[in-house]
């Protein structure tokens, strides 16, 4: 990384989309920590120039001030071929969509899924527990959120491979292709998804069920132009967002749970000995590796962390380094399953706080319980190490594990 000192703000060429950040070895945290050491806000020349916000306080300030830091565009690349709804809308326009969605993902509604999630978890574990080895992503971490989420939305499980491919392209572009080819592939993937969701919308308009998809299609929402149903375009853009937000993130956090607990046998032993640790363990797993890096755009000139940001400037907000800011967390690079308080920002903050956070916490809790009950001595495979990826949703693509076979 070349660094030239600007007048007051460090200038870097860091690019969160650079595949070499995470492959063959995941260095994202290390590289972002180097940025954070330079200052709370640094400037990168990548993607036409953007600010990178690295410290907890400034990250929090950006997320809680939507009137200064607009949510559009959220991505440095055009991932959704237009706006993701409601992710890339600002209050007050954002609020009505949010009000419609929030009850559908409320803690009580999610809690009602507990036994259903547990049976999915155990069904997946049944598939490999006796083998003593698994590719944890394909056989568990990818499957769990996919099955739970598709059931909630009532989208066909057999279409999951298509969903996966389209969301992979939206997030990471085309592996090994040029920027132009990737942009083309992203646009095509988004259009493919919109066409697919349009079919679902048409079908559910005629035959509503009690799934979230049907509820959203048939809900009247208090929008700026009056109380009305959502348009087909609003619905398909919302569904595409829910798909992207609901799958890769949980997949990554499940993988990081395995990786970090393998590295800390003492912490794992404590967790196996005391199930009461699970809730705070989930929070700590979330803290130590935040998946999401969101974008914002300044709506006016503003000073942030000593940087002079101009109206129209693009920013990205590094939750992964905010969560390791020593001003907020003691011993921030150490996994401490009993950490308290743990005010991590992995689900963001402010009006766009992750809609799926209650579901994500539940999936992670149940997965940790059952994994440690059934295959507690899981280990990585030295000759076949995990494959992680960078981009604005960080995560894990492949994670071979081995363990003592169990029934």
């Amino acid at each position, binding site marked *: 990384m070349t660094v030239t000192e600007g007048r007051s703000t460090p200038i870097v060429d860091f690019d969160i989309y650079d595949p070499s950040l995470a492959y063959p070895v995941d260095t994202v945290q290390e590289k972002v920590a180097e940025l954070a050491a330079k200052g709370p806000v640094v400037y990168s020349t990548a993607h036409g120039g953007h600010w990178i916000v690295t410290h907890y306080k400034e990250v929090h300030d950006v997320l809680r001030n939507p009137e200064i830091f607009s949510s559009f565009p959220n991505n440095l690349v055009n991932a959704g071929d237009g706006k993701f709804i409601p992710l890339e809308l600002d209050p007050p326009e954002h609020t009505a969509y949010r009000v419609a969605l*929030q009850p559908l993902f*409320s*803690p*009580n509604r999610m809690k009602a899924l507990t036994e259903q999630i547990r049976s999915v978890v155990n069904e997946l574990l049944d598939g490999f527990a006796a083998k003593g080895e698994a590719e944890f992503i394909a056989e568990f971490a990818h499957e769990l959120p996919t099955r739970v989420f598709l059931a909630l939305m009532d989208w066909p499980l057999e279409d999951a491979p298509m969903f996966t491919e389209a969301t992979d392209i939206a997030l990471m572009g085309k592996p090994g292709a040029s920027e132009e080819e990737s942009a083309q592939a992203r646009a095509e993937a988004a259009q493919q998804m919109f066409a697919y969701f349009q079919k679902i919308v048409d079908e559910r308009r005629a035959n509503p069920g009690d799934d979230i998809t049907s509820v959203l299609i048939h809900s009247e929402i208090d929008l700026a132009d009056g109380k009305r149903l959502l348009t087909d375009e609003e619905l398909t853009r919302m569904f595409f967002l829910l798909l992207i937000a609901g799958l890769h993130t949980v997949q990554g956090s499940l993988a990081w749970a395995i990786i970090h607990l393998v590295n800390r046998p003492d912490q794992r032993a404590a967790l196996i000995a005391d199930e009461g640790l699970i809730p705070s363990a989930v929070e700590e797993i979330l803290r130590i590796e935040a998946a999401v890096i969101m974008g914002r755009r300044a709506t006016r000139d503003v000073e942030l962390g000593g940087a002079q940001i101009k109206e129209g400037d693009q920013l990205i907000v590094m939750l992964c380094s905010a969560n390791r800011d020593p001003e907020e967390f003691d011993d921030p690079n150490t996994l401490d399953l009993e950490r*308290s308080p743990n*005010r991590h920002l992995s*689900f963001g903050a*402010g009006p766009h*706080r992750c809609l799926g956070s209650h579901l994500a916490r539940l999936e992670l809790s149940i997965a940790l319980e059952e994994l440690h009950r059934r295959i507690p001595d899981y280990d990585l495979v030295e000759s076949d190490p995990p494959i992680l990826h960078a981009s604005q949703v960080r995560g894990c693509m492949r994670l071979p594990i081995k363990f003592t076979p169990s029934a």
Partner: protein
Amino acid sequence: MTDHDTETLRGTRRLVVDRSVCAGHGLCYSRSPEVVDCDDSGYPVLLHDVLELDEHIAAAEEAVAVCPERALTLESA
């Protein structure tokens, strides 16, 4: 956690939520269900006005400490 003598606080404290800042993370009612419940959208509902029990004061302090938005405060009643 504070190390005061709660004996003197009974009946003198109230948990307050700043609704303009609360984003519905839900950590308060997960951690301290004795003093905070949630509504159908996942926003906190305070269960008591003035906190009359030591354990409720302790639970309220925990709720204040877990909030990522710093939306909760323990105020004089």
